[in-house]
């Protein structure tokens, strides 16, 4: 995949495009926008910024669970109405259904897409195996550690085979070691031929995380949330260990941007 591909003059096809998107709180208070943004096919895009810059709001607009006050969202060239069925979301607090077992949680999106039971179970099992949770199918979320819960959240999102995976601060409720393991897993799965997901949109407040994972980082500033800058990281070789000089230098550069 194009992780270390050379920068081409024309950008690849856009999976999704935001045009003049704005979000208001009540009548007068603008919390976001106007924002123009493109998620390209095959890219790993991160949104970073201080708290209150509306990055989670932006992600929700992309996933179609929040309607923007103004502007439009184009998916595959067509304006989005309602939930974005070509995207799936991973949540900060996991948002698993506590009363459903792991396998039922993973299959929930497939049930909504009216797949027959047998196929649902087969597909759910495939993604449970892919995230390494085999053997925990019948467990309830409350029996799992936080890291395992987030793996269930990841499997649930991948199981609906989305083109775009939206991740809202997915690692910030986890301890450092678990977060690193799951980050690596996400990158592996993204490149794996078993997974259909083409692009990933990650919201994070951690610059290190954005630099370690992304092809492109969009920096937002607050009040109202606007795009402040954009950093292309396609030239930065992978895997990006945090102690590599190039990685460290990029992180420093981004801190300077945000300051």
């Amino acid at each position, binding site marked *: 995949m194009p992780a270390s591909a050379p920068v081409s003059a024309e950008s690849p096809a856009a999976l999704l495009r935001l045009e003049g998107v704005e979000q208001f709180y009540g009548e007068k208070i603008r919390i976001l926008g106007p924002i123009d943004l493109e998620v390209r096919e095959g890219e790993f895009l991160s949104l970073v910024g201080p708290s209150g810059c509306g990055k989670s709001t932006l992600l929700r607009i992309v*996933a179609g669970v929040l309607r923007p006050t103004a502007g439009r969202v184009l998916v595959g060239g067509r304006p989005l109405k309602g939930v974005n069925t070509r995207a799936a979301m991973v949540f*900060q607090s996991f948002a*698993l*259904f*506590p*009363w*459903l077992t792991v396998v039922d949680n993973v299959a*929930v999106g497939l049930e909504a897409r009216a797949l027959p039971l047998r196929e649902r179970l087969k597909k759910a099992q495939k993604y449970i195996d892919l995230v390494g949770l085999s053997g925990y199918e019948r467990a*309830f979320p409350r029996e799992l550690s936080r890291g395992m819960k987030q793996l269930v959240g990841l499997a649930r999102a991948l199981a609906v085979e989305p083109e775009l995976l939206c991740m809202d601060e997915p690692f910030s409720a986890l301890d450092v070691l678990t977060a690193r393991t799951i980050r690596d897993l996400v990158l592996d799965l993204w490149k794996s031929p078993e997974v259909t997901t083409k692009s990933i949109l990650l919201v994070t407040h951690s610059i290190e995380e954005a630099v370690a994972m992304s092809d492109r980082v969009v920096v937002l500033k607050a009040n109202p949330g606007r795009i402040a800058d954009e950093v292309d990281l396609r030239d930065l070789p992978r895997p990006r260990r945090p102690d590599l000089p190039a990685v460290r230098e990029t992180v420093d550069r981004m801190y300077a941007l945000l300051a």
Partner: protein
Amino acid sequence: MNARAPASYSVDFGLLLLLAVLVAALIFAGSSLRPYDSPELDPRPELLPVYLLLSLTRLGVTLAISVLLAIPTGYLAAKSAFARRLILPTLDIFQSVPIVGFFPVAVWGFVRLFGGSAIGVELAAVFLIFTSMFWNLAFGVYESLITVPEELRMAADQFGLRGSLRWAHLILPAVVPSLLYNSLVSWANGWFFLIASEIIAVGPARYTLPGLGSYLAQAVTAGHNDLTMLALAVLLATTVAMHLLLWGPLSTWAERFHLEETGDRPRRPRIARLLGRSRLVRSATLRIVTPAAQQALRVSSRVLDFLGRHASGSAVAFFGLAVPALAGYGGWRLYVLFAARPLSPELKGIPVDLLLSFLRVIVGVVVSAAVSVPLANWIVRRVRWRSAALAVIQILASIPATAFFPLVVILLTWGLGMNAGAVLLALTTMFWYVLFNVVGAGSAIPKETQEAAFAFGLRGRRYVWRVFLPAVLPSLVTGCITAWGAGWNALILCEYLEAGRRVHEVRGIGATLDRATYRSGDMQVVAASLASMVLLIIFVNRLFWDPLYQRVAARYKMEA
């Protein structure tokens, strides 16, 4: 789910036997019951199981209706701001108004509607019990729906859970714990009202619904102490059995619907495992119950989604049109009542009656609070006893206070003043609400807080004042508000007792109301005492309890 236990024919056999006994009892009951408008119930003790069955059916049907109506009501209130503004105040008022007082009016309406037939009297009883069960259920649904975490709702949106799937995977599971907890409360309330509503008298007319409540009431009135004790024993045994066979297993089952983040694997109730071994139950579940439930969910979710989409409209229809129409009709009746006849001389005594009853309720609230706090502290601190104590309290609380009447009557005959007797009776309903709330809040005090208090030498009484009381204060106020509301209901029944062919009464608004209802039939006095009581309650709620709760909650909420 888990590996299945082997099928067992003995469970099937047991179930069939139980069914046969029930059918036989119903046939026996049908042939030996006296007509509804006969003045007396057949007092033979061997009919008690039949009466019990009839009462349980009445309660069960009413609880089912209440739950089925509470879900859309709470859902609408959670869904639309407009509906919320209409629904919540209505619930609030009805919850705090002493509904027992409205019994005669409601019965009169139903009985007239159905021409005094059995069905009219049954419906009147169901309606009256409903008014004791519904409000907290609807509130509970509303509260649990607005506390569903935002991300969970969003996940349901994002993964496309709509219609019946959303109800099955999000809305219904989220409201199960509160529905269950409130069903327990409603069930206890229902018993209280059942006993009051199985014997219905409006002026000269008197209807007796066959049931445990009417049996008990009749035994008390006639002064048959042996029959009274027998009926009480049946009632107590039923309460315990309900806990063991229904509420306990249901609570175990409902564990899986709690929103907590960590914990043990949710358990399957023992009785469900036992029933799961029956072939009959298995095939009925597979062939009838599951498909029927799915179909019902599909249909009802369509209806509910329609209501939800037109939430404001339906709220206007229910609460904006029906309620004002009723109120208008009531106002017109009142006008006719007071304008057409000269005013009754008894009306002059109402302010003093009201004051006396008010003082009694206040004494009840103060005593409940004063006893609950140390008692709860004692219970909470003994971890080993806590669950056992809670179970006992729960059972005691679900014994309808009306059942304590005979005991108090015995005390009265031993020379206890009726004034103290009325307060004591009211306390049997009021106390549990306070104790329940305080024990609940006390158990939630973080362990670190307790340890910190002990580390700094706060022990004994000082611990109660400095740590325990502030920590439970919001719940204590909640409990007191509920007890205050329940106290008025209780006083209507407590200030005027007929027992052993003697009337025990004490001056108060409840006694005035009862005398007007059962003896003189003076509708002016009925209307005036009800109206003054309702106004006083709403007035005190708005001016005292609501602000008190706001302040206490703002200052003493346990938050990190």
